[in-house]
């Protein structure tokens, strides 16, 4: 039986990466996610699976190492926190434009600017609406438990390779720093060069007797061809939207109100739901697991016949825009958020629900 262990979300990411058979990690330390790099350095996977771990000279260098590694068909990743992820945006846009698989972890801290080291969810727009330049999307996964931190490494890589598209795990300081029970996945071997050649025919692995070279680039100066590339990307995004939308619902059918939140905040909202029920208020919870693709249809359906929706986030109101688009303002949609690293308590959420929705009805 797999051993049950207690670890921080950040540590779980490192363990899960090794066990997935990740080929390389390139990163630069920043609170609250430095344990990812620290744990990898302590576990020394280069001695066992052969996984490369590099503390790069900067975040920009790290993401470009990921770009290079991904171009050769390797399973490569980086991690950082908000200010560091901002630095990576140019590279992320290039990786997306080049249709390469890669995994990026953002353990969000309070911004803007250098901000604070405490938890935040204020990089939602950056993660799901672009961040870098151009029309592209990341597949964005939002873990709410340490177990999901571990599981989403495998899921993130699998989706990245399935669609040749970068995935992002959008976590926050709570789930990065918190310790919980976790069951790690079985150790998988890293893919062999032959397997990479077979599974990634686009990879820059050397000509190997092929007639044509594989070229990985995001540059195309002819507009006609660049539009075709854009259309191909958009077709891929529609396919991902159709197949990969994930969310969790709790008691939405019988509820009068919905609380929608993601990541660790969804768990605080679940406690708020219990407190509200003690006061006779029926609340359902929707937790988007993929922030892109967003569970638009699920939210539209769940909202039917409800009296209102409260969107709770550690920001000034970002995901609420996607919720409003989903329900076309057919019912009141209000926001409650704390910023700067402050985490709301369950009772604060109940108070917000009462003041912003129930008192207004």
């Amino acid at each position: 039986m797999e051993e049950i262990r207690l670890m921080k979300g950040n540590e779980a990411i490192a363990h899960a990466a090794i066990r997935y058979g990740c080929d390389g990690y390139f990163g630069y330390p920043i609170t609250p996610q430095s344990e990812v790099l620290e744990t990898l350095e302590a576990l020394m996977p280069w001695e066992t699976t052969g996984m490369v771990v590099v503390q790069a000279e900067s975040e920009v260098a790290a993401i470009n190492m990921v770009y290079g590694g991904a171009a050769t068909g390797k399973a490569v990743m980086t991690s950082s926190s908000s200010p560091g992820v901002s630095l990576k945006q140019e590279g992320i846009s290039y990786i997306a434009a080049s249709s390469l698989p890669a995994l990026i972890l953002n353990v969000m801290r309070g911004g803007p600017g250098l901000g604070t080291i405490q938890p935040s969810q204020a990089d939602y727009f950056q993660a799901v609406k672009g961040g870098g330049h151009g029309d592209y999307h990341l597949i964005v996964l939002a873990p709410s438990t340490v177990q999901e931190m571990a599981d989403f490494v495998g899921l993130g890589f699998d989706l990245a390779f399935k669609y040749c598209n970068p995935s992002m795990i959008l976590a926050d300081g709570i789930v990065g720093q918190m310790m919980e029970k976790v069951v790690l996945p079985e150790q998988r071997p890293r893919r062999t060069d032959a397997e990479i050649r077979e599974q990634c025919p686009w990879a820059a692995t050397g000509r190997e007797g092929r007639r044509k070279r594989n070229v990985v680039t995001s540059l195309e100066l002819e507009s006609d061809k660049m539009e075709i590339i854009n259309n191909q990307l958009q077709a891929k995004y529609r396919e991902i939207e159709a197949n990969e939308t994930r969310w969790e619902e709790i008691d939405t059918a019988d509820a009068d109100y919905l609380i929608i939140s993601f990541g660790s905040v969804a768990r605080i909202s679940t406690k708020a739901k219990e407190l509200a029920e003690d006061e006779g208020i029926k609340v359902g919870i929707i937790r988007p697991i993929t922030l892109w693709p967003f569970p638009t249809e699920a939210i539209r359906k769940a909202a039917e016949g409800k009296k209102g929706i409260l969107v709770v986030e550690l920001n000034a109101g970002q995901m609420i825009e996607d919720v409003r688009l989903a329900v076309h303002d057919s019912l009141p949609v209000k926001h409650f958020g704390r910023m700067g690293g402050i985490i709301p308590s369950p009772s604060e959420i109940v108070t917000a629900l009462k003041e912003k929705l129930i008192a207004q009805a």
Partner: protein
Amino acid sequence: MKTEIIAAGFGGQGVLSMGKILAYSGLMDDKEVTWMPSYGPEQRGGTANVTVILSDERISSPVLDTYDIVIALNQQSLDKFGPRVKKGGILIYDTNGIHKHPERTDIDVYPINAMDAALELGNSKAYNMIVMGALLEAMEYKIPMENVVKGLKKSLPERHHKLIPVNQQAIEKGRTLLKKK
């Protein structure tokens, strides 16, 4: 069974590691556990706190308004978390340096002097395990000592395993400190 605990004190008093050992002890006793630290510059002084939740069922929020048990190891923590003990809950506080004692009568209040007890053992570093002993004694949910020892083994690096008997002794000493106000 669900026990929601917060331990708060100065950075360096060992509340985070005490919480970790408690969480591991719960894990060894087959419970769901969540350990959530305040993180940041506390390691260099200031106040640190850790929330530990032990439960038979899946744990929802790691962030709480009120607690079954509050452990306050300085005045600031006592002022902040003392009012947040659930009615009928437990407050354990270290009397060292406390000038304003808690006055609540709807909870069980246990003043302890853990530093004196640690010095009696000749080991000031055992301070947090003295506190943990008092906590284990106060908790309604009793973690068998063998699982606490397993928890110690799991949370301490192997090079420190020789210190387990000292820690055990401190826990036992801490248990004897628990006297209702």
